């Protein structure tokens, strides 16, 4: 087996895949080291049909809707990851075994899957504003070019509507927007009728730009509105990072190494040794490269960096968007049939920008409810199951779920800490604490009140607010904050890890701030820039 490469990338998620793509296109010799878990249980048995046809015809549907071990029937679960459907459960498979995390106040989701957490990404794409990029520590001029490059690679559909300053800005590589479903269309129409008064309060509503094709492209099909998006990627309409890895695999200058858990790196005179522990044989392997790019996600990167710097610093900061969701009721949809053609992705966004600075903006991503199945909704009702089924079947089309994200910054009460633990696969364990101050809680509560009030104005009556544990937003950043002072455990804005000559970080570890908007598109754009910087640094 070849163990020597010019460039080694750790991780195949959203950032690793984009960095690999940029390097392979430049013609250099690249390897990705990854554990690479894949779905072997369900992928082949899900028919390439729409949700309604499957529900009416497929005798096998219980296998993938409920899971072989009935893991798709949740009970007493509010833990992070419980929203994953059985065919998406492989995303978190083996994480507990190989990269355990312990905390009473922080429950991050980590993935060892091929394509990483990108396999469960909601596909929302947002260009961050200049004040947001400044707060993160990224240069706007460089990021705008990178956004275009990434958009051209992954395919984004969207619209230049009122929300464009918060979503697409002036992005040019955009496909026409997808068809808006009936449930969300009612809210959007209501917004258009009351736009002036809502805008005065800093409320803007618009279409969510999605990494979903609305035109066929190579081996990916335009969205077919089958409403199976949360279960399967059959048409490849929505972008997933593993698609890039599969595409790159046909290139002679690219190699994908599976079953490789990177433990640490060691810098040598002219390159880097990458120490790997194989997850299939438990054996140690040493790869070597000229340049190493870390992108296993911020917690994975923290583990590797702490070990590589001999545990000289065991505690690092972390940030994660506070998140809650608010089931709402829309009277106008009561007793109506949900249309056959729809998608499971959130297609509408509500932004709260009271001071109109495009900074510290709150947001609610709006979704309708169907393909996650009615029984989960029935469980939330305070009535007996039999009567509740009749009522919920009638009301099902009226439910809209608002997923509310808050912006977030670092503080002394939010951190991760590495501890030695001989019982684990790697000999250590990551722990953490995530506590918001009273002032932060109050700010978030006020923001939620204003968002709920706006939802009411739009004909969406909030029913209750459900808080997920910290970590539930699955947006993590800030463990090795961007800084140009060269201090260890920080990252230079060009992506180079301070204290090293040839090690770069392409994930969100350097981000000093997290806007409420989803960060995946920005992570990918940053990874693209880091890859370009690595090439320049040659």
């Amino acid at each position: 087996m070849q163990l020597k490469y010019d460039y080694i990338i750790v991780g195949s998620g959203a950032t690793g895949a984009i960095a690999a793509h940029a390097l392979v296109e430049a013609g250099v010799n690249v390897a990705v080291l990854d554990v690479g878990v894949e779905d072997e249980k369900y992928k082949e048995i899900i028919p390439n049909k729409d949700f309604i046809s499957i529900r009416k015809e497929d005798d096998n549907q219980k296998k993938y809707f409920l899971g072989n071990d009935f893991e798709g029937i949740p009970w007493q679960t509010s833990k992070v990851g419980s929203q994953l459907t059985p065919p998406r459960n492989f995303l978190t498979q083996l994480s507990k075994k190989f990269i355990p995390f312990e905390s009473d106040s922080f429950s991050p989701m980590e993935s060892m899957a091929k394509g990483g957490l990108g396999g469960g990404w909601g596909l929302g794409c947002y260009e961050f504003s200049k004040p947001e990029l400044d707060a993160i520590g990224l240069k706007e001029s460089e990021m705008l070019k990178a956004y275009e490059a990434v958009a051209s690679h992954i395919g984004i559909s969207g619209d230049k509507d009122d929300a464009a300053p918060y979503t697409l800005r002036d992005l040019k590589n955009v496909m026409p927007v997808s068809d808006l479903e009936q449930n969300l269309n009612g809210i959007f129409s209501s917004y258009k009728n009351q736009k002036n008064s809502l805008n005065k309060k800093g409320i803007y509503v618009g279409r969510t730009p999605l990494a979903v094709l609305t035109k066929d492209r190579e081996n990916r099909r335009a969205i077919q509105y089958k409403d199976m998006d949360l279960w399967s990627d059959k048409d490849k309409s929505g972008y997933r990072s593993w698609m890039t890895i599969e595409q790159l695999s046909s290139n002679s200058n690219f190699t994908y190494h599976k079953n490789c858990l990177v433990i640490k790196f060691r810098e040598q005179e002219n390159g880097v040794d990458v120490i790997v522990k194989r997850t299939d044989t438990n054996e140690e392997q040493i790869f070597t490269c000229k340049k190493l790019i870390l992108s296993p996600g911020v917690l994975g990167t923290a583990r590797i960096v702490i070990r590589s710097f001999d545990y000289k610093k065991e505690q690092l900061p972390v940030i994660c968007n506070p998140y809650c969701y608010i089931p709402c009721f829309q009277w106008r949809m009561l007793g109506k049939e949900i249309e056959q053609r729809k998608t499971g992705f959130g297609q509408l966004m509500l932004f709260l920008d009271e001071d109109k600075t495009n900074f510290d903006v709150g947001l609610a991503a709006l979704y309708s409810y169907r393909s996650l199945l009615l029984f989960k909704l029935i469980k939330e009702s305070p009535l007996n199951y039999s009567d509740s089924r009749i009522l919920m079947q009638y009301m099902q089309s009226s439910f809209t779920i608002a997923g509310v994200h808050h912006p977030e910054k670092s503080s002394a009460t939010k951190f991760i800490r590495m501890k030695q633990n001989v019982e684990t696969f790697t000999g250590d364990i990551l722990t953490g604490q995530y506590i918001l101050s009273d002032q932060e809680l109050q700010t978030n509560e006020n923001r939620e009140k204003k968002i709920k009030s706006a939802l009411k104005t739009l004909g969406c009556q909030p029913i209750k607010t459900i808080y997920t544990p910290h970590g539930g937003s699955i947006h993590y950043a800030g463990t090795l904050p961007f800084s140009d002072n060269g201090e260890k455990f920080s990252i230079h804005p060009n992506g180079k890890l301070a204290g090293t000559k040839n090690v770069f970080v392409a994930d969100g570890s350097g981000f000093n701030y997290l806007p409420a908007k989803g960060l995946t598109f920005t992570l990918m754009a940053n990874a693209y820039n880091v890859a370009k910087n690595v090439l320049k640094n040659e």
Partner: protein
Amino acid sequence: MESKSTAIYEAEQIGHYLLSIPIHDSEKNTYIDAMQKLNIPFSNYEQALWNSMLKSKFKMACIDAGLALKDPNNNARRKLFTMLAILEASPNYTQYFLSRNFSFFYLFKIGAVGIRAVLRAMIGILIVNNIKRKCS
């Protein structure tokens, strides 16, 4: 896990309670499989509730309704919930779960179901309290 015949009886009772129709053998077998895999533990109190629920569809409805308010995560309800999920994930019962266009007059049925649910809950709370008292 009880014997197969007990599990089949449970599946029939629950299915009839949830949808008011007899259910197919395939769903009964899936229920048996689910009970073996999930291995839901019962305390003495939960077993007493469950025994009472199996006596009649009326009792099952009332106790379910009482627990929904007082103790929604009681394991007796978990058995009902598991069967509900199994029924939904079967093409035989799709029409009981998918949305459709309801006529205006269906609102009267909805109102009646709502009232019935409240009455069941009131009776259910009394039964649940009584069983709890006996078990403590």
